[in-house]
């Protein structure tokens, strides 16, 4: 059987496009067919076939002219959190029903300028708040993976769950996600793909619906590490419209993939060995250490002593910032407004609009954020959390000052769980999904999840590598070594 065209990654598609073996229109049409056949996954929530084919035709002309950039003609899925001009951009929330931005986010603008093709918008947790994609107004996205001998639907992770499902099921060549506490890396790990959250400031946040501004970063979700390197290069760059975007040159990340990590020093944080960690994950972690050691790196134990306080600090800082960012959704300028009752004033309109428009998890976080910022509690909660955040970053700074080049950890504390399995549980149980990823956002560092193997039930697990700030190239190179030895992307059996 010949492999499906849509199974190509970015690098392979680039070669075939440049060699004239395929056209972007062919590749785009193949993706659109796959998307149509995969409605059971609920990954794509707004299709844009007309835009896609128009962009593909333009890309083919550009490729024929020669010197087209790497991402030219590559069909992508776009997380619903990105504002895309004229196309529904709802952040998977009822409150943004009908919203069609009059502008384009910088990251999508950069990708389109490079010739990329938008297939449509991808499912996600509402306002990127969640770890299972179940808080979406569109309903949950479904993982293309199932446990061996079982047909139960599993979550693709979240919040970028639609992006992960779409890439893993070969509905697109690559996808973009965003990561505030693990929202790229956890779904990548759950679905056997690669996902990188770059250093805070590497990608512009302009035009991305804001959740927690000091933590949010966009990044690629792809089939290989090389694909991630290529795509990140096209997404990144300084943007005067985002004052936190770094005015630094974007290096050639792909050129950093030498496969040579001899003499590098890999840190293993002892605090990441959590209670009740499944033995599969422990085994993979050990395998990851061995791979890097065999490649000539030295592997040493390190301590990141404030790790256990990362999640509680995150659940002060992220809701605090969210309560402020989400204040703009008031039913006045865009989105959905509640039907007014007789005699309702403007405040009633706000209260009802937000009660109807926000789902339960978003309401919970907005209210927690409101509480921790309110007079009398600001110091006890918000300021204390910001101090703990400084200590967490200090832990990483000390490790890097000691000569550590990259830190290796599991990406998640478990494999994917079933739809509904945690929905009725305490919110805190869902939060624990991000235990290994959230520290990276708090410290503003780059982190990548690489597929590392299957667990006993046949589900993918990922390893996380954490790098020095602004050294995504070096980080990707470590990930490349892991990928080559671990066997690369994992593929689910097709059932949809």
């Amino acid at each position: 059987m010949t492999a499906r065209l849509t199974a190509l990654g970015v690098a392979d598609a680039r070669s075939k496009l440049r060699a004239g073996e395929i056209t972007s229109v062919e590749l785009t049409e193949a993706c659109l067919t796959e998307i149509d056949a995969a409605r059971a996954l609920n990954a794509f929530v707004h299709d844009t076939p007309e835009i896609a084919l128009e962009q593909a035709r333009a890309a083919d002309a550009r490729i024929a002219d020669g010197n087209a950039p790497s991402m030219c003609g590559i069909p992508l899925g776009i997380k619903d959190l990105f504002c895309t001009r004229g196309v529904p951009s709802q952040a998977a929330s009822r409150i943004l029903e009908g919203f069609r931005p009059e502008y384009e986010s910088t990251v999508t603008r950069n990708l389109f300028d490079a010739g990329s093709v938008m297939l449509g918008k991808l499912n996600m947790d509402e306002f990127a708040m969640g770890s299972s994609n179940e808080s979406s107004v569109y309903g949950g996205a479904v993982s293309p993976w199932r446990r061996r001998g079982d047909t139960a639907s599993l979550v693709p992770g979240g919040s970028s769950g639609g992006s992960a499902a779409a890439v893993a099921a070969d509905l697109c060549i690559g996808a973009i996600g965003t990561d505030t506490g693990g929202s790229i890396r956890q779904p990548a790990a759950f679905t056997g793909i690669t996902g990188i959250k770059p250093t805070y400031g590497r990608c512009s946040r302009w035009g991305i619906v804001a959740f927690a501004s000091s933590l949010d970063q966009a990044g690629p979700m792809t089939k290989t590490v090389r694909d991630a390197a290529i795509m990140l290069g096209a997404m990144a760059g300084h943007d005067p419209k985002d004052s936190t975007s770094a005015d630094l040159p974007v290096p050639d990340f792909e050129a950093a993939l030498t496969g040579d990590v001899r003499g590098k020093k890999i840190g293993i944080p002892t605090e990441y060995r959590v209670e009740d960690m499944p033995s599969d994950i422990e085994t993979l972690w050990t395998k990851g250490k061995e791979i890097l050691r065999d490649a000539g790196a030295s592997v040493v134990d390190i301590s990141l002593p404030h790790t256990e306080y990362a999640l509680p600090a995150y659940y002060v800082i992220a809701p605090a910032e969210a309560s402020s960012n989400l204040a703009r959704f008031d039913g006045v300028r865009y989105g959905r407004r509640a039907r007014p009752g007789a005699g309702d004033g403007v405040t009633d309109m706000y209260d009802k609009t937000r009660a109807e428009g926000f789902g339960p998890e978003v309401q919970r976080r907005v209210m927690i954020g409101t509480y921790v910022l309110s007079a009398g509690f600001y110091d006890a909660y918000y300021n204390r959390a910001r101090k703990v955040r400084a200590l967490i970053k200090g832990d990483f700074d000390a490790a890097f000052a000691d000569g550590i080049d990259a830190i290796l950890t599991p990406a998640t504390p478990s494999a994917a769980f079933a739809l509904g399995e945690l929905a009725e549980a305490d919110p805190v149980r869902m939060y624990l999904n991000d235990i290994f990823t959230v520290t990276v956002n708090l410290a503003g560092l780059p982190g990548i999840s690489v597929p590392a193997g299957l667990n006993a039930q046949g589900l993918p697990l990922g390893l996380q590598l954490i790098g020095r700030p602004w050294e995504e190239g070096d980080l990707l190179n470590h990930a490349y070594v892991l990928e080559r030895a671990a066997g690369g992307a994992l593929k689910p059996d097709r059932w949809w």
Partner: protein
Amino acid sequence: MSIDLQKAADVAKLARIRVEDHMLPELAREFNEILGFIEQLNEVDVEGVEPMVSVTPMPLRRRADEVTDGNMRSRILSNAPDAREGFFVVPKVVE
């Protein structure tokens, strides 16, 4: 710190989210659970630590204070639930 029904109602009001009275006990329970989790932070010695302002050690960039955009009223109003005669329309504001 424990949140009672009155406090839960106050927070909902501050957050501008209508919560029906019968939902308040469940809301208060969830708040207490999350705050219980957050209160682990009290174990950390933060004496003398400055609260983090920016994760990257670089100052926010300034730009020239110039008008670079404008004259797009219809585009700005295009997503409004209710816009008339070039204005956003809201229910009565004066109590």
